[in-house]
């Protein structure tokens, strides 16, 4: 193969999906197979894996930039920065996007708008890859918004579905809040340091703290702004509400954008600008992350929609990553990001396959049920064994079982958090403890999902349900992701996360001391706890009273909810949507209506009042004018008029009269001359 420099290669990596986007946009309906997009991402993937990542990872950092434009005396550049962080992120995006593309070919087959699907997907890949490699914050912001835009398009892909367009509107607007944060963060950095270039700010390696930690209020502000950006994109509490709704998009999209890549961009951003954060900001990040992890896990407990469970689990895991950043272990966050990308993507793809089959079942028997509701499933293990195995691997990874990648990364975060908490002491220990609880909750809800979907028996009572294994085109990518969810990909030692190559790439000095004891206790505790919870969940859902028929299950669940209002709260996502609707949306709408009323009636009213006032004054003056001033004038004018009328009679068009007048005047003139 050709030997391209990593910069040129990554330029290709970025450009190829963009070209695919352009070509697909031009071809429109003529290209439905998505071959172009697939080819582009395949090439990108190959280039990234062979020519960028091996040359950059643990080797020289490369940076190249061109002047884009200049304002005043400042130059703004456009360029790529390739270091461990960015090349890793680039590779991950490619590696996740490729299976999703292949999967989509089968999953989206026959959709009337599929040409748009491929177009949007390529656009997303382009923007996401650009985001990973941008060397300055402005370019990053551009890519940041573009991924949001692509996500908007893909959530609203089925635009005639009212819920989908509501969801994409919500997603974009909430992301906009984050974008504003990002923008203000950029503005503060610009006004503090006078540059937006990451190399100028942080040095070539991107994670050296070359910037003197400035603890002034504006640094805190800048940090909070960046975190706000990450909060919206990575769905952190309280801006997480868009992500569950975003599940209205095609499942393949959810797997790529709303599980693996885009939502992780916030974590990536925070890792990139990590040196900027002072302790205040870091604490805020940790606290928010912890709350998010907990609340999302809690909401996931009672959800009935398979995709929503996964969505909340994504939010929860993102919260984990945020905590890792907040405690300063951003390497662990990145590690978890990478592992999570694979297994969460796999979970979604598998869920997609299940939904696909359920939808088939629904269409075939013309039944009316929600194909995404886990209450309608059950016993699918028999029909879809391969999917079951793959999903089980992913679930175990999510729950943090040994031998999976999730075990490594989750332990990394938990152990770091515990070490940090012990260092800080006091109430701060609540954060690692909360994380441990969340881990158990994670194990529970994913276990619930697995057992409800795959065990027991199908709750839709039909003869010969006709559910079968997903086709190879869907299964293949899932197998690939399943392999990537195992420990071997990241570390040869299945039990020690410190051996993971990802973490080795990001070595830096921590602020807290390492406690060796934790490295053995925590994994052990977590594994045992998770297994116990799974057994309990299995007994409860697969064998116990909840394992029965659909009606029975529904009854039990509703009875449960009646007895435990907390469950009701969980199902309704804490009524946060309703609260936002009332508190923000409605009040904004009412405020704007009020303002419009103000505009119409007060401001415009004032203008019109001024107009009427002037008219009233002019009416008075017109009256004065007509009857007083004009009276006088009219007298004069009237007399002039009659005089004029008299003269007008002269102009009667009779030539003889004219002549007569001429002669009269002549005569008078002569007489005057005579008598002078």
């Amino acid at each position, binding site marked *: 193969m050709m030997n391209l420099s990593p910069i040129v290669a990554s330029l290709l990596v970025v450009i190829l999906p963009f070209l695919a986007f352009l070509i697909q946009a031009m071809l429109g309906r003529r290209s439905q197979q998505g071959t172009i997009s697939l080819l582009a991402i395949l090439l990108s993937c190959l280039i990234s894996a062979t020519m960028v990542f091996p040359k950059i990872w643990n080797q020289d950092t490369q940076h190249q930039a061109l002047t884009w434009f200049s304002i005043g005396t400042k130059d703004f550049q456009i360029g790529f920065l390739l270091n461990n962080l960015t090349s890793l992120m680039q590779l991950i995006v490619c590696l996740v996007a490729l299976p999703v593309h292949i999967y989509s070919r089968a999953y989206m087959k026959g959709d009337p708008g599929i040409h748009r699907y491929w177009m949007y997907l390529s656009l997303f890949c382009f923007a996401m890859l650009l985001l990973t490699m941008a060397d300055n914050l402005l370019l990053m912001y551009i890519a940041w918004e573009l991924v949001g835009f692509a996500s908007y398009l893909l959530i609203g892909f089925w635009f005639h579905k009212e819920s989908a367009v509501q969801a994409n509107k919500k997603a974009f607007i909430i992301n906009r809040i984050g974008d504003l944060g990002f923008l203000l963060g950029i503005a503060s950095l610009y006004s503090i340091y006078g540059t937006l270039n990451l190399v100028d700010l942080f040095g070539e390696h991107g994670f050296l703290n070359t910037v003197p930690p400035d603890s002034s209020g504006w640094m805190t502000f800048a940090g909070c702004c960046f975190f706000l950006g990450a909060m919206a994109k990575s769905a952190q509490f309280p801006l997480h509400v868009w992500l569950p709704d975003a599940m209205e998009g095609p499942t393949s999209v959810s797997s790529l954008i709303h599980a693996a890549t885009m939502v992780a961009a916030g974590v990536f951003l925070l890792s990139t600008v990590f040196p900027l954060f002072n302790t205040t900001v870091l604490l805020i990040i940790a606290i928010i992350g912890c709350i998010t992890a907990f609340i999302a896990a809690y909401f996931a407990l009672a959800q009935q929609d398979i995709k929503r469970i996964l969505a909340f689990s994504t939010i929860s895991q993102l919260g984990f990553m945020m905590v890792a950043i907040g405690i300063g272990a951003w390497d662990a966050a990145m590690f978890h990001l990478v592992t999570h990308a694979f297994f969460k993507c796999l979970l979604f793809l598998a869920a997609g396959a299940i939904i696909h089959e359920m939808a088939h079942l629904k269409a075939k028997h013309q039944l009316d049920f929600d194909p995404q509701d886990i209450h309608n499933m059950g016993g699918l293990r028999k029909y879809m064994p391969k999917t079951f195995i793959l999903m089980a691997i992913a679930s175990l990874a999510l729950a943090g079982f040994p031998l999976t990648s999730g075990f490594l990364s989750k332990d990394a975060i938990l152990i770091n958090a515990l070490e940090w908490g012990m260092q800080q002491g006091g109430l701060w220990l609540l954060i690692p403890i909360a994380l441990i609880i969340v881990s158990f909750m994670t194990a529970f809800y994913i276990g619930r999902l697995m057992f409800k979907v795959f065990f027991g028996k199908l709750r839709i009572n039909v003869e010969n349900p006709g559910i079968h294994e997903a086709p190879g085109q869907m299964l293949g990518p899932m197998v690939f992701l399943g392999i990537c969810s195992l420990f071997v990909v990241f570390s040869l030692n299945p039990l020690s996360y410190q051996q993971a190559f990802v973490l080795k790439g990001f070595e830096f000095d921590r602020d807290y001391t390492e406690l060796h004891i934790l490295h053995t206790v925590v994994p052990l505790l977590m594994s045992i706890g998770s297994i116990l919870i799974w057994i309990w969940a299995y007994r409860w859902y697969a064998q116990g009273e909840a394992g029965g028929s659909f009606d029975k299950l529904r009854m039990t669940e509703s009875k449960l909810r009646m007895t435990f209002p907390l469950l009701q709260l969980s199902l309704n996502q804490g009524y946060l949507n309703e609260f936002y609707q009332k508190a923000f949306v409605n009040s904004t709408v009412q405020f704007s209506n009020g303002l419009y009323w103000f505009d119409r009636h007060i401001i415009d009213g004032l203008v019109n009042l001024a107009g009427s006032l002037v008219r009233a004054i002019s009416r008075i003056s017109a009256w004065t004018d007509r009857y007083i001033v004009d009276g006088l004038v009219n007298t004069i004018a009237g007399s002039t008029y009659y005089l004029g009328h008299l003269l*007008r009679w002269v*102009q*009667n*068009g*009779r*030539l*003889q009269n*004219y*002549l*007569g007048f001429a*002669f009269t005047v002549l005569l008078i003139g002569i007489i005057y001359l005579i008598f002078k």
Partner: protein
Amino acid sequence: MITLTHFLVVSACLFCIGLYAVLAKRNAIMILVGIEFIINAAILNLVAFGRYDKINYGGQVFALFAIVLAAAAVAVGLAIILNVYRKYKSINPDNITDLRD
């Protein structure tokens, strides 16, 4: 002895009659006739004064010119009257008031 004054008085009378015709007649042809009277009055003056200019014969020469002019004027005037008649079916100047405001 016929003095210059005699001629002048006669021509003044004729001029005034012509003027009256021009001003008062309700027939375009009669107006033309009035104009002829005025011209004739002028010719009479020319001729009368011409007696005292033997060197140039100015009076008589210009009298002749004036006759020619009068003839031309009549020709053109009549042509105009004919056209007016064609257009308005009348040669009464009172009926032709296009110049009115």
